């Protein structure tokens, strides 16, 4: 079932989107769409069909935290799993993201193992 999940990867750097997409493919998730900031991601999310959001934080336009808040504020997607993959590494930022309802937080640069563990942890807690 999990291999059918549709992921949305949001990052303003096309190289990072491509890297995350490749690793998701390796984990068996081949259904991946991309957006370059919150403003372009939100219409894709609102259109429906996305099961898992992986987003950067620091992006021009709408940053990832605002996108997370918009997702949590919308009843149709309030429970969507959201993983922040970001270079922002200050304690208060991590706390702010947690308070906004993030499900996982990965600091760049990350390893393939870290990304795998966080995604699997979020999916197993959602399935429980």
């Amino acid at each position, binding site marked *: 079932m999990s291999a059918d999940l549709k992921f949305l990867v949001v*990052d303003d*750097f*096309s*190289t*990072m989107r*491509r*890297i995350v997409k*490749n*690793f998701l493919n*390796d984990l068996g998730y081949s259904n991946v769409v991309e957006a370059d900031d919150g403003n372009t991601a939100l219409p894709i999310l609102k259109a429906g069909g996305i099961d898992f959001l992986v987003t950067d*934080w*620091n992006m021009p336009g709408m*940053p990832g935290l605002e996108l997370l808040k918009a997702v949590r504020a919308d009843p149709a997607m309030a429970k969507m799993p959201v993983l922040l993959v970001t*270079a*922002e*590494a*200050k*304690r*208060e930022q*991590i*706390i702010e993201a*947690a*308070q906004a309802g*993030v*499900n*996982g*937080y*990965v*600091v*760049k*640069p*990350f*390893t*393939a193992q*870290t990304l795998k563990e966080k995604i699997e942890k979020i999916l197993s807690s959602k399935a429980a």
Partner: protein
Amino acid sequence: MPESRFSSRYLLLVAQLNSALAAADEKAFEEALDGVLRQRESGLLADVQRLSDSLLAALNRFRTDSRIVTLAEKEIPDARLRLDHVLEMTEKAAHRTLDLIEGAVPMADATVRRTVEIADTLDDHTHNEIRTFLAETRGNMEGIRGNLKEVMLTQGFQDLSGQILRSVRTLIGETETVLAELAALAGEAEGGKPPEAPSGTALEGPAVPGVTQGAVAGQSDVDDLIAGLGI
């Protein structure tokens, strides 16, 4: 002493005011009052003149200091463009590397599959050398595949270095705007560059050693913090 200068300036005028007031001589009082006001204005004018001279001297210094004008009109815009170029080059290089990896991984996968298929056709008692070779090839290909994936992950440097370059670029743009305004004020610049929009965000991107404060030490710190927050 300033106080004695102040006293000497006003002592006579105040005495004139007092005597005119005592004599109820309105005309003399008005004249003495005008004297007080003139005295006050002359001090103010001197201050304004001093300020004006200082400003003129500063502007003249600025006009003759062509280094600042050169910085505003040429070198800082050049630095901004050079950073843009670095961003573009690293992005292209990272994508080219990812193209090559995406091309090479399926080849490694196909070779692994083929070694298994061929090994399955060989009986267990003969072709020892070939079977050994196929097992080694499979192991090597899996190693190469793993390394290629690590190289792919390493291309994330383009995102991390790019974020730092972008923040420096924003700073340079703001400096450029300020210097262009100063140069225009001095009458030397032919109009400034359009103002660069400030970043409008407190997000700093990747932690820079010696610059960023309050950052966690690594993913394990993040995990501890997140776990402590009940997530």
